[in-house]
């Protein structure tokens, strides 16, 4: 056998795995991938892009159990969830300049904390550094009547100058209001 053949094949193989089989990983698990997802959404004239890995419920209790309350959660699986804004926005009233950020949350039965952190390329929350926080805002979770199996981040209620960022998993939806500054909505660029 060609001695060079194996490492290449092993690499391809490892790549396949990273991309595929580790869906069974829990949200807290190590460096294996849940299925990766990217969402690009235009709101007004601002582009928002979100990349995350999407764990499943898999008959477990999620919030308050697999994802503990009062502890920083990477809000997805594997690599920290990333969010990019092409222009300045407000998240639940807090100013965010254009840029790419890591999105973290601290789940809670009554009031979640949403964290926009400047360290955009982190592996999970293990290296989460509070000093790199840009803002922390509060959000009130909404109880869903039907469970959602796969963790979902969606942008909904899209209007000309606002939208809602929804974090949805199991029977919980956490809405965060995105508002475009008036200048961005009315000025050409």
């Amino acid at each position, binding site marked *: 056998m060609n001695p060079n053949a194996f490492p290449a094949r092993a690499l391809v193989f490892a790549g396949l795995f990273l991309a595929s089989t580790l869906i069974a990983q829990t949200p807290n698990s190590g460096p294996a991938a849940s299925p990766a997802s990217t969402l690009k959404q235009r709101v007004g004239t601002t582009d928002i892009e979100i990349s995350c890995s999407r764990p499943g419920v898999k008959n477990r209790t999620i919030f308050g159990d697999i994802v503990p309350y009062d502890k920083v959660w990477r809000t997805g699986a594997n690599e920290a969830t990333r969010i990019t804004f092409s222009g300045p926005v407000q998240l639940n009233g807090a100013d965010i300049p254009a840029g790419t950020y890591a999105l973290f949350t601290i789940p809670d039965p009554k009031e979640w904390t949403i964290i926009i952190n400047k360290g955009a390329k982190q592996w999970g929350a293990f290296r989460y550094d509070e000093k790199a926080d840009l803002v922390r805002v509060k959000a009130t979770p909404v109880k869903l009547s039907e469970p959602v199996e*796969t963790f979902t981040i969606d942008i909904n209620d899209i209007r000309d100058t606002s939208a809602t960022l929804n974090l949805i998993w199991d029977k919980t939806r956490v809405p965060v209001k995105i508002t475009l500054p008036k200048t961005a909505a009315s000025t050409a660029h």
Partner: protein
Amino acid sequence: MKSITISALLFAAGMFAAPAAPPLEFPAPSPACTVKQRVGLTDIEIVYSRPGVKDRQIFGGLVPYGEVWRTGANQATKIVFSTPVKFNGADVPAGTYGLFTIPGENEWTVILNKVPEQWGGYQYDAKKDLVRVKTTPVTIAEHVETLMIDFNDIRDESAVLDLIWENTLVPVKIEVELAGKLVPQIESTMAGPGDKKPYYQAAMFYYDHGLDLQKALKWIDAAVAERETFYIVHLKAKILAKLGEKEGAIAAAKRSSELALKAEGPKSGYIKMNNDLIARLNG
């Protein structure tokens, strides 16, 4: 006559003199969205425009029943599969398709059309359909303002494409081939020479898919020998438990908790999962 000439001249001069208005970028009433999702080894991409309910009645109103709908707004909705898939059971080769639907009160038709780039449903040609599948709409309690196309129930070899708007959810099952492709590759790689093999991932795949657990155990032992980490040892505990080796499983679960405590602190989800496993084994 003279005045006409003058005003025409003034008009022409104005055309040359006036600077062009700066380009204005208006918000689209139905903003564009791209969703990319990996399912198994297949990449799926959807590009669509997202209209809002805006206090209108959507299905059976603005979007009539029984007529082909572009399933979005503006440009027809586009869907790309990187490999062949099954679309509610129908075979679909890798490629880019136009996604159309025919809404119905009790049954929807979901269409993949071979012409992906077209404006709305106006040029839609049924002769270019690749497949038409039927699906049953579900009424949901939450009002969804903006049309949403999402993948959910994502498993190793399947996912559900959900079309969600107003109070309606329309599910379409997508299946991809994974185990049949991967198992021969795993077998040959793991039996081959060399080190730094994906021991943990191979063991996980065999455990998840109910394949040869003795092999999974051999690989997880090799993974632990390489790097003793809480999540790797936790998988070892689950494999041993499935093999009926209760004592070994409990010992591994305890070890995994020790490691998780060090790595993640007392709130680590792994401590809880290990305790659950131990309780189940002792129960």
